[in-house]
């Protein structure tokens, strides 16, 4: 048991922090916000290719580095500290995982290979209008058509969906219900019958798209794995992505705390730095309690995932629920403690606040994830010895 980063992990973190501090600046994020492009292409090229992060969690067999969840959350945490406008999360934590869990060897070799090489950005089109994050609620459909498939439906809230090279579309067999009949389709480029619209998002640092599919014909090889068998893979993907997003939230929350502490040490009112007033000190202290605990939740969950146990869903929900609340609270408190300057466009506080808001509901809000934990509790037999990793609870 060693619940601290290894030297190699420390290196990854340090180099990520250094690189992002230099390149993923507020100025560049604001430039992207003002532009028509969805992300900072130079930054993405740097990240994916030079830094090699796109290869980080791709298995070695497909040209990646084969690192684990701990390494992914390290990168995501650092990414969250900055407002990096790049489809790293969409590519590595959403689409890449979906391919990994559901693709056949050829598909993995091709798609993951290109992802690892930094040649392919990607996202997952899962949610739909008036839908949440339950697999059962997918309405988009596929049907067999000769050797290929025909897709129909509307996908919404697809992060970086208009700007990535590859889209993984979740759809169900026409007439199927529940978790039956679900498939994932890998689409590159815009196909006939496919309409993609950029949505106006409150958080401008991570764009969303709506994808409309109107009798879109795709080849047989576009379907990842065997048709109708994607439920487990989708479930795992959403869990991994939720945990990765939670890590990003920890980074964001930490940045809110750091910036606030810096500010309240300098800002003087009533003849004292406002950081000497308990109302301010104690709010900062509470932020730190939550941030450190959120971080523990993420690291703990990442270790569990790397163990490959059946606790994935529970620990992912734990991390996502806790970190969503933590980030939102810290980002809100950061504004409050910055006073008037905190509500201005010029100051970055609102960018973090909006990111916190967006990631709070994305992949399920805290109440949704706590309910998932509650289901696990209900199913848990307290009289059985569940000792794992010497684990409490």
């Amino acid at each position, binding site marked *: 048991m060693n619940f601290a980063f290894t030297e190699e992990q420390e290196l990854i973190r340090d180099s990520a922090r250094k690189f992002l501090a230099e390149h993923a600046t507020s100025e560049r994020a604001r430039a992207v916000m003002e532009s028509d492009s969805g992300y900072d292409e130079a930054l993405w090229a740097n990240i994916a290719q030079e830094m090699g992060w796109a290869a980080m969690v791709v298995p070695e067999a497909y040209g990646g580095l084969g690192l684990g969840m701990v390494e992914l959350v390290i990168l995501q945490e650092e990414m969250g500290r900055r407002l990096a406008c790049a489809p790293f999360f969409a590519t590595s934590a959403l689409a890449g995982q979906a391919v990994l869990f559901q693709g056949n060897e050829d598909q993995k070799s091709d798609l993951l290979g290109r992802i690892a090489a930094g040649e392919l950005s990607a996202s997952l089109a899962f949610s739909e209008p008036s839908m949440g994050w339950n697999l059962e609620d997918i309405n988009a459909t596929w049907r067999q058509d000769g050797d290929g498939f025909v897709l129909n439906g509307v996908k919404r*809230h697809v992060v970086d969906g208009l700007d990535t090279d590859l889209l993984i579309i979740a759809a169900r067999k026409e007439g199927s219900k529940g978790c039956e009949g679900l498939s994932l389709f890998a689409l590159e480029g815009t196909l006939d019958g496919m309409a993609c619209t950029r949505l106006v998002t409150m958080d401008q640092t991570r764009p*969303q798209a709506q994808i409309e599919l109107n009798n879109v014909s795709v080849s047989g090889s576009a379907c990842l794995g065997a048709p109708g068998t994607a439920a487990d893979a989708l479930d795992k993907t959403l869990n991994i992505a939720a945990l990765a997003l939670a890590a990003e939230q920890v980074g964001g929350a930490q940045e809110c705390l750091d910036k606030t502490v810096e500010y309240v040490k300098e800002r003087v*009112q*009533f003849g004292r730095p406002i950081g000497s007033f308990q109302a301010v000190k104690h709010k900062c202290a509470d932020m730190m309690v939550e941030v450190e605990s959120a971080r523990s939740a993420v690291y703990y969950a990442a270790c569990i995932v790397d163990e490959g146990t059946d606790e994935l869903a529970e620990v992912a929900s734990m991390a996502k629920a806790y970190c969503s609340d933590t980030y939102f609270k810290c980002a809100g408190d950061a504004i*409050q403690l910055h006073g*008037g300057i905190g509500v*201005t*466009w010029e100051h970055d506080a609102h960018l973090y606040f909006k990111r916190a808001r967006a990631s709070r509901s994305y992949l399920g809000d805290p*109440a949704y994830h706590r309910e998932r934990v509650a289901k696990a509790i209900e199913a848990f037999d307290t009289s059985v010895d569940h000792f794992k990793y010497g684990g409490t609870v």
Partner: protein
Amino acid sequence: MDLNFSPEDETFRDEVATWFSENLSGDFKHVRYRGGSGDQSEMFAERREWERHMGRHGWSCIAWPKEYGGRDATLSQQVIFAEEYARAGGPGRTGHLGVELAGPTILAFGTDEQKKRFLPPIAAGDELWSQGFSEPNAGSDLANVRTKAWLEDGLNGKEWVIEGQKIWTSLAQFADWCFVVTRTEEGTQGHKGLSYLLVPLDQEGVDIRPIKQMTGDAEFNEVFFDGARTAAENVVGAPGDGWKVAMGTLAFERGASTLGQQMDFRNELYEIVEIAKRNGKIKDPHIRQRLADAWMRLKIMRANSLRMLTKAEKAELAPEALIYKIYWATWHRNLGELFMDILGDEAEIGDAAPYQLNGLQKVFLFSRADTIYAGTNQIQRNIIAERALGLPREPRGNT
């Protein structure tokens, strides 16, 4: 103790409601529900015209004495007016800083000449006001005001010359006048040596720069005074008494207009209830608890106001008046969060490119400022603890 309005009051209510329904139509139909906190620049010209229209018919400042354009309205009538105004969808009042703050301050502390000069144009909707209290280093700490002013001979006799910077000056970009707290006695500190000046904004020496806020709109401003001038007689109260007058102004923020604000809140809450019904979240047990909480607290907000106003009419200082700001600001901020949680991912999506958000999204964002301006929640708690509960003051630092 009762909540009934008298038959005379109900007659008054009918009169008000009828006038609004007849007048918020035709030319003014399009200003209904427009503008207001967080969205102050929306249809400003049209709303300014509406302000004049109300003034022409004597509905602008009903609490004021008749001689200055008011109606000597009773408390009940003020409550009725505020509620009916909001219920009819009356737009955000462009003149509200004059009607609610500058006017009452001048009525309470001003000279007869000042009343005659300044009150009728406010009542007529002809002159708009803004508030110059906060400074970059005097946000929560008003006693730290550094904007200074002194008397000089000018073209029209003695004039105040003003140097300094104000910030968070809402609506200054539209206003004709600003009431400005300045330091007029060199070397003074804290509450002493301040004066409350009335300064025309349309002059050289005044530079107004809007501050873009997180909604993308600009409602606040920085106002730079660089040799700006106003006549010597445009000081409210004696020179050096500015602190007392400014505190009076802040007290007027808790008048009958709070009932109107609550009706706006009610409209927002109704809209959110309808959204929850439409998207099915009304069946979500957690959302139900939060909706119930918001609903209850809004009723309680009104009951708090009625207690406070009843006492104010009897000229009693109500300690519960001190809780009003933190209560409504916190409520409003929570309402914005509730709205976003009801819509979930869909709450992200705005109306139009490049960054046009919808009204309730703006409530969510702008309400973060509610707990900051006019005294942060932290300052409000100090005020409650010290003034209502008599707890000791915090030691002031020396740095």
